[in-house]
């Protein structure tokens, strides 16, 4: 018989962390090299690819930034990400709210239509979408790409919000309505603030997807003025195909902002998933 928190129990608990620590090391080692390699020169890298840098040499970052015209790519990626994510949050939270509070079956039926978007591989519609966008003059055009990112991001966001909303009690909303508040007002000042964990989850997951997107920008953005970070990184790799430290510098620059956003918001993701994904 084991008493709760007996010494052997605590010891067993400590031991159970070992697999997770091993996994964390497997994650960290290659990531660490991604960050270390750009601090070394091409000569050092060729002599010993996995060596430790002699010092903090930012030359490769400077080369990547200047030669790759990363400034434009950064500005484009940031604009596309900010607008898309804001729109995904606004449109999906409103839609999920209306769907979850709809009387009768129509709400849950329509929710199934949105959920269908999670099953169908999005890439498969791209060639047809390209023809539609070309006809509408939306190719090689940042708003055109933003529209695609919003449409592609809506299913997951509606799914998470809908699940989260099923756990939000309706009494407060009913009370506010009896006091004469409009539906719009109930949503914006009462319900939306309650959705914060779901919003954080949607924000971080869609920021990652949009920021990291390669396939949509490969298809829809041709000119250099409109290029995004992942596309710039790929283009950079083919120009500097022998200078590994330089294009790794480019990769690190594109990764750092989204990694920071992720680290800042990740603690909300767990509560957002707890109340969201598990209820839908």
């Amino acid at each position, binding site marked *: 018989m084991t008493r709760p928190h007996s010494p052997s129990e605590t010891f067993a608990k400590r031991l159970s962390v070992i697999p997770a620590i091993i996994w964390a090391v497997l994650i960290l080692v290659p990531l660490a090299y991604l960050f270390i390699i750009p601090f070394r020169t091409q000569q050092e890298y060729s002599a010993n690819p996995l060596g430790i840098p002699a010092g903090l040499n930012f030359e490769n970052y400077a080369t990547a930034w200047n030669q790759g015209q990363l400034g434009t790519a950064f500005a484009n990626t940031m604009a596309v990400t900010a607008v898309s994510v804001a729109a995904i949050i606004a449109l999906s939270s409103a839609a999920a709210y209306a769907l979850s509070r709809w009387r009768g079956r129509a709400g849950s039926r329509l929710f199934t239509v949105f959920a269908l978007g999670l099953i169908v591989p999005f*890439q498969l519609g791209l060639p047809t979408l390209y023809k539609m966008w070309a006809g509408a003059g939306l190719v090689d055009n940042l708003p055109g790409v933003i529209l695609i990112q919003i449409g592609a991001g809506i299913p997951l966001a509606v799914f998470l919000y809908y699940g989260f909303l099923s756990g939000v009690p309706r009494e407060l909303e009913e009370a506010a309505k009896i006091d004469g508040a409009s539906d719009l007002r109930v949503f914006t000042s009462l319900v939306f603030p309650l959705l914060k964990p779901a919003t954080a989850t949607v924000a971080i997951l869609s920021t990652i997807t949009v920021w990291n997107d390669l396939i949509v920008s490969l298809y829809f953005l041709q000119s250099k003025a409109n290029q995004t970070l992942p596309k710039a990184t790929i283009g950079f790799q083919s120009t500097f195909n022998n200078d590994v430290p330089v294009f790794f510098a480019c990769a690190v620059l594109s*990764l750092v902002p989204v990694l920071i956003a992720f680290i800042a918001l990740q603690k909300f993701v767990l509560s957002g998933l707890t109340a969201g994904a598990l209820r839908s």
Partner: protein
Amino acid sequence: MTSYSLPTRRRFALGERATRTLFIVPALAIFTIVMLVPVAMNAGYAFTDWNGFTQDFGWVGLANFAHIGADVATRTAFVNTLVFTAINAPLQILIGLILALSLRSTSRFIVGVRLIVVMPIAVSGVVLGFIGTIIFDPRTGILAALAESTGLEFIGANWLGDPKLAMAAVIAMNLWQWSGFTMLIFLAGLTSIPEELYEAAQLDGASRWQQFSQITWPLLSPAATINIVLTLIGGLKIFDVVYVLTGGGPGDATRTVVMRVVTQGATSNYGYSASISVTLTILTMIVALVALAVLRRREARNS
């Protein structure tokens, strides 16, 4: 329902319906234009010989679908995709579950380890390709260096260049990136299990294994359902990881269905490419719906 009989209430309900429709319309419209319409039109082209460029095309009935069975490259792509899914899904669930169970407490150290484990989620496909090089490159990679220092030559194999090993490397990279996400969903499930259940079980003298099999595992079923469905769908749709690591090669060794669709669509076989994507979509829906039905029944038994 009785409230509908009150006249004031009825007027309110009508206005409510109109506002709520307005809440739904923008999201539904953009989603429909960007996803539903192209996918539906794509399904229509599956029955034509359209090359993707010209104005005119002819209807060919089921000829494109019949060709799928005869086309070795497409068949290989389906086999590869199924192999990937069948191996990746159980491993991802198992690793995610082990991680969630061992990182269940909320001490500062544990939360720090959790953060490391979920970090790869933020890595883009392009950067993942670079990380693949760091690990697997037979000249500059970590595994090559390990092989040299330990003398275990097989570790330093040409993982991404050998048709027999490439799929294993692709699966390993996919697990590297996504096991943390599976863990998050299991953790979300674990936090909803009341602590009192364990306390009661411990008072009854239940072993750790009994606590897991009698409390944790049954009560994790909603999280397990989501993880199983997500890994199955994700496996059948797999594209990015393979594209950046091997480009489908060497030869056709890691070519997946979505890659086959994309390449065929770009080479004047638009109608044929569409028929492959329709087949994949139907297959994915069947797998997802069957899995959901089976798992929901299991959940109902457990609750």
